[in-house]
């Protein structure tokens, strides 16, 4: 599988100013990330809040400019594109936001919102716009009769479906979902995840899922990248990362999910400030295995298809593999099964 999107040593820092506007330092939100997203794959980026995963998601779409590094998308050097060329490229890369109450323009009807990308990129002639919008709405489980309604008249799950229809409208190759279900009720989460999975399969989408919900990630991701303080500490196939985590931070993260079965020393202390991250390995201040070398040198991300950024990755005691049926994932699967069954005798979504 070739990579549709490749990042190389990408970084972005946000200056922090004091009350008088003098630069006091910088939050290094994304700090040297190299990542390759295989075409047609679902890649999850996981990590605690504040680790830079949302910033990374926006940097890879060039919604936030990177300070350095290279971003290659479908053969283009994304950072070198002129504004016009970048706008045309946006047809192939879309974003789904976390909060469906904020991501839709309150003064646009569903029809206007979904038709906007069609019009911007000349996807269909004007005469067919309405028809295409109805198709898209039906595809995401909305009734096309609701096309003239305004966002405030919908529930969170329905709004997220509108946002998904809007993201699909321009027939993109890549969609980045920034916590696309975490603002929704648990029952609705399962429905929307089912929908996303169906769409990914049907349209052969490449999907970058930014999430902190490991249950969801385990369920739909092909690959997982674990982020800590602006860096990727582990990246590999989902099953391998969940069964044999190679970075102490990944172990701790998995152990924090109840019922995962991974035994690890629980993390102590807070995440260090991204303004002044620790020297060497950024995780060393909270790592139970840290040695002298961890203070001196930043560990490179190495190990091929399942890579980890840890000096000690080959010397760590083996992690206890997680139980086959984890609590979070099990609950989700049950919900999904429930809604899948219901769908067979009731085609219209009831979100």
């Amino acid at each position, binding site marked *: 599988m070739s990579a549709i999107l490749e990042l190389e040593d990408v970084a972005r820092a946000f200056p922090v100013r004091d009350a008088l506007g003098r630069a006091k330092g910088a939050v290094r939100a994304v700090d040297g990330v190299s990542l390759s997203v295989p075409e047609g794959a679902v890649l999850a980026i996981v990590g605690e809040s504040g680790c830079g995963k949302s910033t990374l998601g926006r940097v890879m*779409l060039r*919604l936030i400019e990177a300070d350095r590094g290279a971003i290659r998308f479908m053969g283009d050097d994304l950072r070198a594109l002129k*504004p016009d060329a970048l*706008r*045309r490229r*946006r*047809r192939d890369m*879309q*974003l789904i*936001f976390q*909060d469906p109450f*904020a*991501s*839709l*323009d*309150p*003064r646009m*009807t569903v029809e206007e919102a979904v038709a*906007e*990308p069609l019009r*911007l*990129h000349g996807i269909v002639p004007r005469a067919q716009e*309405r*028809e*295409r919008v*109805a*198709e*898209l*709405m*039906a*595809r995401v489980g909305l*009734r*096309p*009769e*609701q*096309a*003239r*309604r*305004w966002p*405030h*008249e919908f529930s969170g799950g329905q709004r997220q479906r509108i*946002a998904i229809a*809007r993201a699909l409208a*321009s*027939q993109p190759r890549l969609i980045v979902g920034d916590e696309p279900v975490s603002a929704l009720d648990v029952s609705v989460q399962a429905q929307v995840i089912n929908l996303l999975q169906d769409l990914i399969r*049907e*349209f*052969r989408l490449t999907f970058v899922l930014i999430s902190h919900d490991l249950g969801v990630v385990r369920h739909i991701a092909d690959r997982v990248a674990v982020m800590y303080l602006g860096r990727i500490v582990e990246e590999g196939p989902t099953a391998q990362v969940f069964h044999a985590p190679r970075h102490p931070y990944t172990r701790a993260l998995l152990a924090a999910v109840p019922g995962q079965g991974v035994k690890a020393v629980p993390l102590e202390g807070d995440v260090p400030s991204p303004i002044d991250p620790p020297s060497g390995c950024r995780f060393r201040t909270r790592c139970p295995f840290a040695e002298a070398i961890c203070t001196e040198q930043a560990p490179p991300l190495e190990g091929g298809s399942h890579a980890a950024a840890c000096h000690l990755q080959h010397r760590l005691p083996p992690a206890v593999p997680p139980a086959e049926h984890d609590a979070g994932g099990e609950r989700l699967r049950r919900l999904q099964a429930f809604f899948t069954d219901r769908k067979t005798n009731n085609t219209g979504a009831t979100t």
Partner: protein
Amino acid sequence: MSGDASARRIGATAAPVAVERGESPGRRALRRFFRHRLAVFGLVVVVGFILVALLAPWIAPYDPIETSWARIRKPPSAEHWFGTDENGRDVLSRLIWGARASLMAGVVSVLGAVAIGVPIGLLAGLSGGWVDATLSRIADAMLSVPFLILAIALAAFLGPALENAMLAIAITASPVFVRLARGMALEAKSTDWVEAARALGNPPWRTALVHVLPNIVPPLLVQGTLAIAEAIIAEASLSFLGLGQQPPAPSWGSMLNSAQRFLDQAPWLAVAPGIAIFVVVLAFNLVGDGLRDALDPRAQRR
């Protein structure tokens, strides 16, 4: 794309039936506005005031500038409801014609202020950097001078005439709209839906006009209504000082001006335009408050 065929197939089964019509944000605000009694009362007064101004030639009982030595400073009577002034002119007729000057000054100068202020504010808020800094400092500098003082200075500089007074008021009132539009644009810029507009591939100008502008209309409408009240007072003040409507054409401000010399002998000369200004300004303020309540984003989910 591979999905086209199947999307079409699914679309075919869902042929559009009766389209449901939603309630637009604007209509919802209107519905809320009409629940607000004082605001509706204000709206009635405002509409009445506008009708009086527009229909002045037909409803004024006398010529507003025709003088008569026979009826100087007569108190209110059956022929002259609000009395006559120091030149024997009918006060009611002058009041009705004077409404034109107030309406013009209020509406035209505020429209002017919006036309100057909003584009500048949008530009400042959306572009940021030195453009924002420069434009904002100019607006701040203008705001640091009291409203009337600046209007008086400008009107005096432009020369005494109603058009010049209107221009002076428009310029003086514009920094308020610069500030408001800039603030709202900054707020809108940080919302997800504006970022979404960018992510979809909107050029910056389209984002500004299609996504930002419609969403900042509500506060502009509220501020605009309140500014009309202020502009009416400003026009009256300028006319009072002889910088607005020029005699013999009537204006509520200049009527007050000439009335002050006869306050003890002919108080009706001051009472009529005074109450007219008071009522109209109050009405515009009530409408503005009603709009503010109806458009309040914190009450959006009702």
